[in-house]
């Protein structure tokens, strides 16, 4: 048994298209390290230069958002699923409505 990491579409170029990869249990920081070893450049995609998670990435261990538990120190166990979720957002706010001063 191991920990499954769900890879979002945007990072699958790094994983040769794999949508789910298996890693050894550890903290989220450890898991990202394992992914970096296997897929060089991975860490840079999910973490900032200051070593914290990219602000547009949400990480869940099963159904728990790691921001509310241990952040990068959150422990995982065999059988867990870790989901990396890129923030999905946008909108038309460069249009006329925004120019009129509507709240964003």
């Amino acid at each position: 048994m191991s920990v499954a990491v769900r890879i979002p579409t945007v990072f699958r170029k790094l994983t040769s298209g794999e949508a789910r990869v298996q890693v050894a249990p550890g903290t989220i920081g450890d898991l990202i390290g394992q992914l970096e070893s296997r897929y060089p450049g991975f860490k840079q995609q999910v973490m900032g230069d200051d070593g914290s998670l990219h602000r547009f990435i949400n990480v869940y261990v099963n159904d728990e958002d790691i921001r509310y538990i241990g952040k990068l120190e959150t422990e995982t166990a065999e059988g867990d699923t870790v989901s990396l979720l890129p923030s999905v957002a946008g909108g038309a706010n460069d249009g006329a409505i925004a120019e009129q001063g509507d709240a964003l």
Partner: protein
Amino acid sequence: MSRALADEMIEHCRAGRPNEACGMLGAKGGDIVRVFKMANALSSPVRYSLEPSEQLAVYNALDDQGWDLGGVFHSHTHTEAYPSPTDIRLASEDVPYLIVSLATEPAAIRAWRIVKSDWAAETGDIEEVPVTILGS
């Protein structure tokens, strides 16, 4: 995608007015098979954002069904179905982004692939993806 699924997506966008509405699409073998109608966490007429917990629930559903993420959609309530600079700046998933414009009647649906040098890049190129609505 089928006319019925396209209508389901448009109706979700209409129901969300005056705010933008959003959601995701499930795909099987390249065909759109499910519209996931989701909440706009920003409740804004000019911006949208998916709630991460709801996004996770959609990914769980996709996995359970053996489907792929087929696209992300949102509405533009008063502008055309063309990616805004905000849409490009905040694009993340490597799937087509569908925009439903409610500025015209009937609503217009266009899809775009947003290509950036890095997923967090502020700018990028757009390529239109043909949308075929079956049975219309």
